[in-house]
C-alpha cells in the first residue's frame, strides 16, 4: 500500500480571486501582516502496491489528465509513508 500526495496550485500568472477573498477576510480578522494568499488543492491517493517510479509516473499522468487543468494549473507530487 502506498500513499501519493498531489498538490495543485493555479499557475502564478492566473488571477486567484478566492485567495484574494481569503486575504481580505484574514485582514478583517486582524492578521494584518499577511500580504498574499493563494488557494490550491491537495489530493491524497491510496495506491495498491509500492510507490515506485512506474506508480509515480502513472500518478503524474493522472494528474495531467484529470486532477489538474494544465492550461491554468500546475502540480507537484510525492509519495508519503
Amino acid at each position: 500500500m502506498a500513499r501519493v500526495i498531489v498538490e495543485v496550485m493555479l499557475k502564478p500568472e492566473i488571477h486567484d480571486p478566492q485567495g484574494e477573498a481569503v486575504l481580505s477576510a484574514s485582514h478583517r480578522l486582524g492578521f494584518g501582516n499577511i500580504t498574499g494568499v493563494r488557494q490550491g488543492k491537495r489530493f491524497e491517493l491510496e495506491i495498491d502496491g509500492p510507490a515506485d517510479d512506474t506508480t509515480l509516473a502513472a500518478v503524474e499522468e493522472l494528474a495531467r489528465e484529470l486532477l489538474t487543468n494544465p492550461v491554468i494549473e500546475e502540480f507537484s507530487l510525492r509519495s508519503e509513508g
Partner: protein
Amino acid sequence: MFPGSLDDTDAARAVRYAGAQPVSLWHADRDLRGADAVILPGGFSYGDYLRCGAIARFSPVMAELVPAARAGLPVLGICNGFQILCEAHLLPGALTRNDRLRFITRDVRLRVENTRTAWTRGYETGEELTIPLKSGEGAYAADQATLDELEKTGRIVVRYAGGAPNGAARDIAGICGGDNSNIVGLMPHPEHAIDPLTGPSADGLGFFASVVKSFAGALG
C-alpha cells in the same frame, strides 16, 4: 445532458423555435442519435466537482462527440458546455472564477465578431446582442500566445461590448475551433433570449437559426 445540467430544456425550446427537432442525448450513452448538430447545455454538471466540466468531459457521450466534432459536426457549448469543450481540448484555454468572485446573473451586450461559424452565420459582423450571463466561473483565460492566435485567426466569436463583467481575457465571451469553425463555445446563454416574452430579447435565436438554415441550404 449530464447529471446536473440545467438549461437543456431551454436549449431544446430554442431548437424548436428555430424550426428543427431537438433530440435529447444522455451522458452515459455512446450515442449521438443521428443528430446533425449537438448543443452542450449550461448548468452544473457533476456539481462542478473537481473543476467545472472536468468530469463530464470523460462521459461516454463525449467519447462519441469528440471525434465527431473533429470531423466537422457542429457543436455549440453554452456556459458549462463551453467549460466542457475546453476541458475536452476541443477549444483552447480555460474558464476561471469570475474576478470579483460573485456569481453574475445579468443581461450583457455582446458584439458578434465572427459570422462565418455554423452557429453565427445569421448575424451581421459587429451586430450587438442582449443575452443573459449566468455564471460564477466565466472568465476566459489562456496564455498570451493563444490569445494572440485567436485574435489573429478571427476565432473570437463574441466579445463583451463595453468590457467583460467577469475578468475574461480580452473581453472574450465566446470562441470557435475545429476545421470549419464548427465548434463554438460561449459563456452567455442565447437560449434564454429567444422570445421577448421570456427573456431580454430574441437576439439569441440566431445561434440556433443559423445552424438550422445551414442544413436547409445543404439540402436545397
